[in-house]
């Protein structure tokens, strides 16, 4: 690991000022950055820990019936939160898929998203759950829907000095589910990830959102599949159509984990499985 200056600011303004400088990196849980620094793929000259800034961790209920999750909330706490497990099941499932308990006790939800890996385990769920991302900087605050956050592998719209502060989730969908395709049960990166959230009314899908991870340069929504499902009741035929539409929305690569054809095939299979389970949960 190369040498760096370590900062532990206590205010967002100070953190933003430090982060706006050249060769600066934010440190949240460290489970991506510290590994990257050891592998020399990350060689920051300054590392700014967000640990000492009050108010960045925790899960709170919002006035509109939704919840806010601070960026420094450890993913293990997201996984175990009753509120998230009940109302935003796909997110709890996504959080539970990250690494090991040791990793999840360190890793933060903000870090998992800020790293902007297309394969991040919480991102498909946050897409399906229609999360809004609050961003702060010295110039003030702004908010973007999560699907507008990513611009490429490891790339986001965040500009110099901008720091994500929280994820806001609207009031819960009727049912949601996340499936990760992997080899090992845990301690694995997603070959692909599919999350689905559905709103149901009297047996009819009134709205569906599908988030896909590790199938394109950025995490994506399968909007065509979502539109196919809207207004329909669940049948094998409609699921098959949705699965095919989701697969068609992908532009996967072949890499060391699996081939592009494999990924495309799994998007089809797992979209059908996640939507079916999300609908079953809505009925439950």
């Amino acid at each position: 690991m190369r040498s760096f200056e370590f900062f532990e600011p206590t205010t967002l303004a100070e953190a933003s000022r430090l982060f706006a400088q050249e060769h600066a990196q934010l440190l949240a849980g460290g489970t991506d950055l510290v590994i990257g620094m050891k592998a020399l793929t990350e060689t920051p000259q300054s590392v700014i820990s967000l640990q000492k800034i009050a108010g960045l961790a925790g899960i709170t209920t919002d006035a509109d019936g939704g919840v806010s999750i601070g960026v420094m909330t450890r993913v293990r706490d997201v996984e175990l939160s009753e509120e998230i497990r009940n109302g935003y099941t796909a997110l709890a499932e996504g959080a539970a898929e990250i690494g090991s308990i040791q990793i999840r006790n360190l890793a933060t939800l903000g870090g998992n998203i800020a790293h902007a890996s297309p394969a991040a385990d919480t991102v498909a769920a946050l897409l399906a759950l229609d999360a809004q991302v609050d961003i702060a900087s010295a110039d003030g605050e702004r908010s973007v829907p999560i699907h507008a956050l990513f611009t490429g592998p490891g790339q986001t719209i965040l500009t110099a000095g901008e720091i994500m502060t929280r994820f806001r989730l609207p009031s819960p969908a009727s049912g949601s589910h996340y499936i990760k395709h992997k080899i090992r049960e845990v301690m694995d990166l997603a070959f692909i990830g599919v999350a689905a959230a559905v709103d149901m009314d009297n047996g009819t899908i009134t709205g569906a959102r599908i988030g896909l991870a590790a199938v394109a340069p950025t995490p994506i929504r399968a909007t065509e599949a979502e539109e196919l499902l809207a207004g329909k009741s669940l049948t094998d035929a409609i699921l098959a159509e949705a699965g095919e539409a989701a697969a068609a929305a992908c532009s996967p690569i072949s890499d060391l984990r699996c081939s592009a054809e494999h990924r495309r095939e799994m998007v089809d299979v797992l979209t059908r499985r996640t939507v079916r389970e999300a609908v079953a949960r809505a009925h439950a």
Partner: protein
Amino acid sequence: MARKTHVQTQINGDSVEFLCEARQSLLEVLRDELQLTGAKEGCNNGNCGACSVILDGRLVNSCLVLGVETGGKVVETVEGLAAPDRLHPIQDAFLENAALQCGICTPGFLMSAKALLDNNPNPTEPEVRYWLAGNLCRCTGYDKIVRAVLDAAAAM
């Protein structure tokens, strides 16, 4: 030589001060600065669990925590597990079940098992496997480790 920072922590019940570079992990600090070599380096990137310690009550990979992040925190390592006059029941159960072969992963497994039983004194076999899944063992096939943790829970 890079600048060093003074850090004060509590380790296994003792107040401990050390100097470290910002780039030194908690694992390096424990092993190289404090001679607490019970935590092991197997992969140095969070994928084997041999360096597992309990930090402020939470099980973590000490290779992924920077030493400078641990100021004011409480660290528990394998060296603090046994009482002065007797082993911890988890340690006894590992010995009685022959739950170690080479032993390099054992300190990490013991800390994971402790964190589990601190949280859930009566785990099922699937719960034990879920909690220990961040610790790799290449010798045992895990069978005897899982049994040891179940036995320790019963004994405690």
